[in-house]
């Protein structure tokens, strides 16, 4: 089962929930945690783990073979992203604008634009006990998160098809990187906080996730601050609230130090177990 942990708003507790759930599950069985926030991956800060594998992430871009080119300009005309242009006597490729559609390369009558692989970042896999942790991080200046997210999910699925639970720590927001993260999840856990910001971004995230007709559950973090509008929204939308994590300076301090909170606060262990039980019940109950 693939569980995506997402939120809309940043800083609501996605990484806290992902890392703590993963560590808790790992106490009794193998589990995979994939950090898909490839722009700012920081789940790994919460584990001391051995690196077991590393590979370069790449994207396909055209390479101009001057010797074959007749400067016909077809490549520039077929590119919808303005990623390749004719500039006087040369063809210039803008790799950051390229979407790797291959149109320029394959429609070039002279085969003067072979595809090459350009580095965009690195995928790393770590292990500690039962926990297999996979992250991809974009090189600074690389803009496209989606291909790295897709690649990381694929890597996890191929290598750990036998593991019962895979957790995806999602990037914030509601646009393409989040869509790519939740696309093939079996369950989406949305973490929010009980404030107008939390509610606003939660409702956007719900609309996004519902495009894929996913089963959703909400966790209200920092419960006790703010107001009841999030709970009211969930009632209205018939979205189950799986847990309320109390607002606590102690939790904020443990998180700030890179510590797993359930190990220090027994109440959190119970809350996390409750979340896992609820997800099992919902997904096995035909949801």
């Amino acid at each position: 089962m693939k569980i995506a942990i997402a939120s809309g708003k940043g800083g609501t507790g996605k990484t806290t929930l992902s890392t703590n759930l993963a560590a808790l599950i790992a106490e009794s069985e193998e589990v995979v945690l994939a950090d898909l926030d490839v722009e700012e991956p920081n789940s790994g800060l919460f584990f001391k783990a051995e690196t077991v594998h590393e590979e370069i992430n790449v994207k396909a871009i055209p390479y101009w073979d001057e010797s074959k080119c007749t400067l016909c300009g077809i490549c520039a005309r077929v590119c919808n992203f303005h990623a390749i242009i004719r500039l006087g006597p040369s063809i210039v490729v803008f790799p950051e604008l390229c979407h790797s559609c291959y149109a320029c390369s394959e429609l070039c009558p002279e085969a003067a634009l072979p595809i090459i692989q350009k580095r965009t970042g690195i995928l790393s896999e770590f292990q500690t006990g039962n926990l297999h942790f996979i992250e991809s991080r974009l090189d600074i200046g690389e803009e496209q998160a989606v291909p790295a997210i897709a690649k990381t999910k694929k890597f996890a699925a191929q290598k750990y098809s036998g593991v019962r639970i895979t957790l995806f720590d999602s990037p914030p927001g509601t646009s393409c990187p989040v869509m790519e993260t939740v696309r093939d999840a079996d369950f989406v856990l949305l973490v929010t906080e009980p404030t107008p910001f939390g509610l606003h971004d939660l409702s956007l995230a719900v609309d996004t996730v519902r495009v894929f007709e996913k089963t959703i559950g909400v966790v209200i973090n920092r419960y006790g601050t703010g107001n009841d509008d999030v709970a009211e929204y969930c009632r209205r939308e018939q979205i189950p609230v799986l847990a309320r994590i109390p607002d606590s300076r102690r939790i904020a301090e443990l998180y700030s130090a890179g510590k797993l909170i359930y190990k220090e606060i027994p109440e959190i262990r119970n809350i996390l177990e409750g979340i896992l039980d609820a997800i099992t019940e919902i997904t096995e109950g035909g949801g």
Partner: protein
Amino acid sequence: MKEIVVISGKGGTGKTSVTASFSYLGGSSVVTADCDVDAADLHLLLKPDFGYSEDFYSGEISSIDQPGCIRCGKCADVCRFDAITVKNGIYRIDPLRCEGCGYCARICPPKAIINKERKAGKWQISHIRTGGKMVHARLGIGADNSGKLVAKVKNEARELALEERAEYVIVDGSPGVGCPVVSSLSGASFVVLVTEPSVSGLHDLKRVYELVKKFHIKAGCIINKADINPGQHQKIMDFVAEEGIPHLADLPYDERFTKAIIEGKTIIEISTGNLEDRLTKCWEKVRRLTN
């Protein structure tokens, strides 16, 4: 006219609360731009009047004209995004997977694939109670191209600032280091980095500052929730000292941030004393460093 961009790398460090405070302090000398277009929250504090609104189109989306389709499958062969599926001999394009490259339409033998402009969201110009104006936007559900909508919001804010003779454009950026952030940094005069003293806060600050350096933009740093972890706070201070980034302010872990959000106000409006002072001094510092 100077452009000040507020970013953080990590989400939830207080960008929007800081931006709203600066916007309030700047009053009519500021045009405010919410460039966190896929989870925009600034309007919840500044309560714009949504005075002017326009649809935003970006990129294309392909679809198959079924009567014209000869079911040859060439479109599905060339699509690198697995957007074209076949079921019972009928080819369809999944709008959520289509990147809008138009390759399929170009090679379709009977020309049965149509490209349409994709509606990617809306953008608005509003009056706000600070006496200034605000440009904001909403990305459509499932829409791509957030970087382009960010660029649109910024350009509109710049034009508006010139028209209104405003001194500053203040930009609320999005988390991360990817396309929307790159887009919001382009052309900036000064970057305000809002971080928090946590391992994640520092990790993300370092990555986003690497990006800021690539653009050769001056930056300053605000440490929010500054008292939550003294050890991490020191590490951030060491980092900014090493990089020569001016430390703009320490803001305490304070429930007035949440209170302001609940009331739909800026911190300046609800706080008298310490917090308001710090933010006012911080805004003055930002102005000094920007000019």
